[in-house]
């Protein structure tokens, strides 16, 4: 490939700015929705035999976003 040919390669954005902005805002929202959703899911308590928890998956805490149920709910509602 000649230098000239290489110089003629141009990257072209196919989507307008608005589409790309919305795409990335969605990406952020989705990440926070999933993270806070995990935190909300993790808040389910166990009342031993009254309401057992043992059939629910144990998801590691570092996957959750929001710190605690209240914080996660705030983020979840905000980015809904």
């Amino acid at each position, binding site marked *: 490939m000649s230098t000239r040919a290489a110089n003629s390669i141009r990257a072209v954005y196919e989507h307008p*700015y608005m589409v*790309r*902005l919305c795409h*990335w*805002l969605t*990406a*952020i929202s989705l*990440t*926070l929705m999933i993270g806070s959703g995990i935190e*909300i*899911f993790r*808040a*389910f*308590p166990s*009342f031993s035999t*009254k*309401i057992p928890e043992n059939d629910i998956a144990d998801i590691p805490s570092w996957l959750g976003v929001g710190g*605690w*149920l*209240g*914080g996660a*709910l*705030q*983020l979840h*509602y*905000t*980015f*809904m």
Partner: protein
Amino acid sequence: MTERDFKRLSRREMLKLSPLAFAGAMLFKTVRTPIAEAGLRFSDWVSEKQIGARRLAETFSDSKVVSFEKFPYNYYDVLNPEVDLDSWKLTVEGEVMRPGEYRLDQIRELPRISQNTRHICVEGWDVIGSFGGARISDFLDMIGASDSARFIEVDCADDYYSSIDMKSARHSQSLLCYEMYGRPLDAGHGAPLRLQMPIKLGYKQAKYLVTFRVSSMLGVRKGYWEDLGYSWYGGI
């Protein structure tokens, strides 16, 4: 990179980086907290306007109700704040025509409503229970609550506190509950009197009531869990 390239980058690229900058800003608590709280307030506003206290919560037949033994005790501080039931009185204050201290038998004289409804906790569990009591609405008429009052604030024997909007309080299924499963409330479930509103989440159902305040404005203390970050409206 030539200087010209750099200038172009600083304009367009910076604009393109704005979502990333926003994501980065969200990592900081000082930025995140006001945004998330504003989002929650908006969500509360929408629920109040759109869902409101217009519809009825689902009621269930006796066969769907869990046994009393299976109904969990949930509490924030102590399970039994050792309320002296014999001397207990509900202090009514605020924008009412007849403030003062009300005995339980005065509340029991109001029409007794019994309903099987679902108690739903924000943590994700729920139980169908049997509750009995007087409509908050009837009690508000008894104490002569002002028509212009917008809120009810309650204080509890275990230092819990909460507040509700008048429309939810006036809902036909919102009770001042003194019975569960046809028996007087036990200490763990909030004896002698608690709120029971099937259109609200569990943390709004304050137990061990001692003060019932009718007001037009909410103070800084809106509710124990609400002040920590849960939704104030707490509707279902």
